[in-house]
C-alpha cells in the first residue's frame, strides 16, 4: 500500500525542527510500524537523505525504548500497545500518518523522534528502591506475601518507563509513572520501612524537575501501553498523605 508520512525532523537539541512529508510506496500490511520506518529509512539512505532517528531495541514491547506520538496519540491508535508492537494492519491504504516525538518540557528532543527521558531516572534515584545491601537479605520465603498483594505489586511493577503517560497528559504530569513505583514498593512488606521517605522524596523530585500537576484527567491510564491503573495514583496520594502527617 501507499501512505503519506508527516514526520518531525530536528537535527539536534538546539536546531529548529519541523515536519517533513514523505510519500511511501510499497508498504505491506505485514510490516510492523517500526519495520515501516526501517523501510522508509532504507529508501531515504538510498536516495542520499538522512534517515529518521528513533529509539527502539527489544521490539517486543518490554524495554520501553520506542516512543512515538502517532496521529496525536502516544504509541498510536491500538490500545495497550507499545509503538514496536503496532502493526500496519491498523492503517489503511492511502492514509496519512503524523509522527512526532513525545512533547514535554521535561523530555527535550535529542534528534528527530528521540527525546531525553533521563528525568525518569532522576525521580527513581530520589527513592525508587529498597535499601537492601547485597548479602544482607533474609531467606526469601521468610517473608510470606499474600498472593493478591504480590500480584497487585506486579501489575504496578511492569511499567516500562516509556513516558507515554507524560506525553498524553495535558499537564505533562509524571504521576502514573511515579505512582507505579511507589505503589509497587508500598504494597510489599520489604518496602514499608522506607515508604514515607520514598514517597515524599520522589514527589518532591518530580515537582522540582518541572513535571506538571496531576488533574485526575485519566489520559495516562488510557494511553499506558502496559495498562497501569490510575488507582495506583490514589494509593500514591494516600501514601503521601500518611507521610505528611
Amino acid at each position, binding site marked *: 500500500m501507499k501512505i503519506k508520512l508527516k514526520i518531525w525532523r530536528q*537535527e*539536534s537539541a538546539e536546531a529548529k525542527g519541523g515536519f517533513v512529508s514523505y510519500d511511501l510506496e510499497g508498504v*505491506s500490511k*505485514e510490516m510492523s510500524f517500526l*519495520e515501516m520506518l526501517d*523501510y522508509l529509512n*532504507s529508501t531515504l*539512505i*538510498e536516495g*542520499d*537523505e*538522512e*534517515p529518521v*532517528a528513533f529509539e527502539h*531495541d*527489544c*521490539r*517486543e514491547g*518490554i*524495554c*520501553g*525504548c520506542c516512543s512515538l506520538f502517532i496521529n496525536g496519540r502516544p504509541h498510536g491508535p491500538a490500545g495497550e*500497545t507499545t509503538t514496536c*508492537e503496532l*502493526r500496519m494492519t491498523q492503517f489503511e491504504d492511502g492514509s496519512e500518518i503524523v509522527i512526532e516525538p513525545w512533547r514535554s518540557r521535561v523530555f527535550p528532543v*535529542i*534528534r528527530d523522534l528521540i527525546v531525553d*527521558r*533521563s528525568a*525518569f*531516572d532522576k525521580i*527513581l*534515584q*530520589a527513592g*525508587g*528502591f*529498597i535499601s*537492601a*545491601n*547485597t548479602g*544482607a*537479605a*533474609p*531467606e*526469601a*520465603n521468610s517473608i*510470606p*506475601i499474600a*498472593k493478591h498483594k*504480590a*500480584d497487585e*505489586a*506486579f501489575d504496578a*511493577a*511492569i511499567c516500562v*518507563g516509556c513516558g507515554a503517560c507524560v506525553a498524553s497528559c495535558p499537564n505533562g504530569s509524571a504521576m502514573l509513572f511515579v505512582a507505579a513505583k511507589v505503589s*509497587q*514498593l508500598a504494597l*510489599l512488606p*520489604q518496602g514499608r520501612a522506607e515508604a514515607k521517605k520514598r514517597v515524599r522524596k520522589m514527589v518532591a523530585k518530580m515537582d522540582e524537575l518541572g513535571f506538571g500537576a496531576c488533574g485526575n484527567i485519566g489520559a495516562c491510564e488510557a494511553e499506558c501501553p502496559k495498562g497501569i491503573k490510575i488507582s495506583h495514583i490514589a494509593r500514591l496520594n494516600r501514601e503521601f498523605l500518611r507521610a505528611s502527617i
Partner: protein
Amino acid sequence: MTMLDAKIPAGPLADKWSNHKNSIRLVNPANRTKLDIILVGTGLAGAAAASTLGELGYNVKAFCFQDTPRRAHSVAAQGGINAAKNYRNDGDSAFRLFHDLIKGGDYRAREANVHRMAEVSNQSIDQMVASGVPFAREYSGYLDNRSFGGVQVSRTFYAKGQTGQQCLLGAYSGLIRQLARGKVTMYPRRDMLEVVIVDGEARGIITRNLVTGEIERHSGHAVVLATGGYGTIYYLSTLAVGSNASAAWAAHRKGALFANPSFVQIHPTSLPQLNDYQAKLTLMSESLRNDGRIWVPKEKGDRRHPNSIPEEERDYYLERRYPAFGNLVPRDVASRAAKERCDAGYGVGDTGLSVYLDFGGAIEKQGKKAIEAKYGNLFEMYNKLAGINPYEEPMRIYPAGHYTMGGLWVDYNLMTTVPGLYAIGESNFSDHGANRLGASSLMQCAGDGYFILPVTIGDYLAERFRTPRISTDGAEFDAAEKEARDKLERIMAVGGKQTVTSFHKRLGRIMWDDCGMVRNEAGLQKALSSLSELKEEFWREVKVPGRLDQVNQELEKAVRVADFFELGQLMCRDALSRKESCGAHFREESQTPEGEAQRIDAEYSYVAAWEHKGEGSDHEFHKEPLKFENVEIKERSYK
C-alpha cells in the same frame, strides 16, 4: 598453542568456592574508595555488579548504549530464573542443579564454575526478593516455582512472562541507589570502542558519546565487561536488535581470548519469520512447552487447517522420539528436531518452515482459565504479532538464534587473559558449556554480578590501591583513541551505495545457513569464503550517511556489523576445528545412527580459546582441557 590455566582452587568441588573466598586477598574499605572500576554494560549482570561494588565503596563508572540501564536486553527474559531452593521438596540441591547444568551443557563446561553458580543461586533469589522483585506466589503467600526446560524438578522462579524485566529492575534499583550515593556514575548512550592497556593491564576504555559523537577517554584500575551476547549476528534473532559483539571484540583485539565462539543456542520456540521486512524474531517462552504439545502432520504437505487434522494424523515427533522427556527436551534437541521435520517436508505455514505448538488438550483438561493464568500475556503477545488466537488454534513456531554460550574466556576469578579485564554475564563463555538450560542465564548473571565478581576482583585490586588515579593523557590512550577514530572515519569514508542493514541481512543468512543449527565441513568452508567476499564488499560499498559528531544510528550499526564479519569468520573456524557434535554444535559428520549428537570426548573435551594475532593474520588456537571428577560422563540421552 598453549594449555590455559583456569586457576581453579584445590579441594572438593563443594568447598572450592568457600575455600577460595577464605584465601583470596581483600581490599580494606578505606582503600576501596581510592579505586575506580570501569563497568561496561548494565544489564542484569552489570547492574548487579554496579550496585554491589558501589556498596563496597569502590568508585564505579558504568556505561551502556541505551538511555538508561533499565532497557538492557535482560529486560526481555521471559520464563524464569533458577535456584536450588528445593522449596518443592522434590530432591533438588546445589549438586543436582550443577549436575543438570553439566549434562545440559553436554560436558563442555568447567565443573568448578558451574557448581559455584549453583551454590550462589539461592542467595540471588533472596537478594531479589529483598529488593522488591514481585516473583509469582502461591495462595499461601510463599514463592511459586515451576519446572522449566529439560529438567525434572521445579526450581524456576518467575514473574509471569516478565521475569527478566523484574530481575533487571531489581538490580537497576540497587544501581540507582548507588548513583544517588555518588558511588556509581552512569554514562548512558555510550558505545565502547576500545580497551586501553597500560603496561599490560586494562586501564581504561574509549567510548563514543552517541548524542554528541564525541570520542571520550575513561580510566580505571580495572575494566569489567558485562556487554551481553552476540546472537544478533544472525540478523534475525530473539535478541534486542542493539545487542552486539563490539565491546567483547574490542577486548579480543587487545589480547583477551575468545572461547567457543561457535557455541550458539538456537531456541526452538520463536515466532517464525513471516516476511522479508522483519527486523527480529519474537521468542515464545519455553515455559509454553510445559503444557503445549508440538506436532506436524503425518502426511507431507498436508495443508488442512490444524484443527481439522484428526489426532491420529498428527505426529507429536518429540514425544515419539524422546518418550522420557517428550516436549520438554532441551532446546538444542527440540530445535534440531523441528528443523529435521521441516527439511523433510512436514513443516506447516506458507513457507513450510514452522511447526505447531498446541494447547488444545491442555485447555480441555485444565480449563481455559488455568491456561490463561499461566500464559495469558504470552498468548496475547502471540495474537498481537501473528494474528492467531492460541486459545482456538495452535501457535506456529520455529527455531531462532537466541543465546551465545561462547564469549570471552575467563578464569575462575572471571578475569580474561588480559590482567585487570573481567567479563561477566552472557559476555563470558563460562558456565553453560555447549548448550544452556532454560532459566539459567539470569541465574548466572545475578550470581556473577552480585556474589562472584565483587569478591574475586578484590584479589586483583588488593595490590592496586597504591596506583594513583590513572591519567587519560598517556600515549596508550592517544593510540587507542586514534584507533577508534580511524575506524569510524574509515567507515564513513567508504561512501558506497548499500545500506548497513542490507549487509547485516546477508551476513545473517550466511551464518544461519552454514553456522547455525547444523554444520558441516563443506558448508563452513563455503561460509568462510562468502564471508570474506561480503566483508570486502562491505568495505567497498557500504553507505553511512550523516556525520561523526551527531546522533548517527547508521554509524552505530555499521560498527557492529563490521565486527560481526570478523566474529563470523572466527565462529566458522571454531566450528570447523571441532569435528565432534556437542550440545548446540551439531556437526553432521558426527552423529549417532539415530541422528543424535555424537560427542568425541577423547579428542574434544576442552574449551577452544582463540587469540587474535592482528588484522589479516590467522587466530592462534589454545586449549583449556576439561576434567570431570564429580559427574559420570554419559551420552546425553533424553529418550
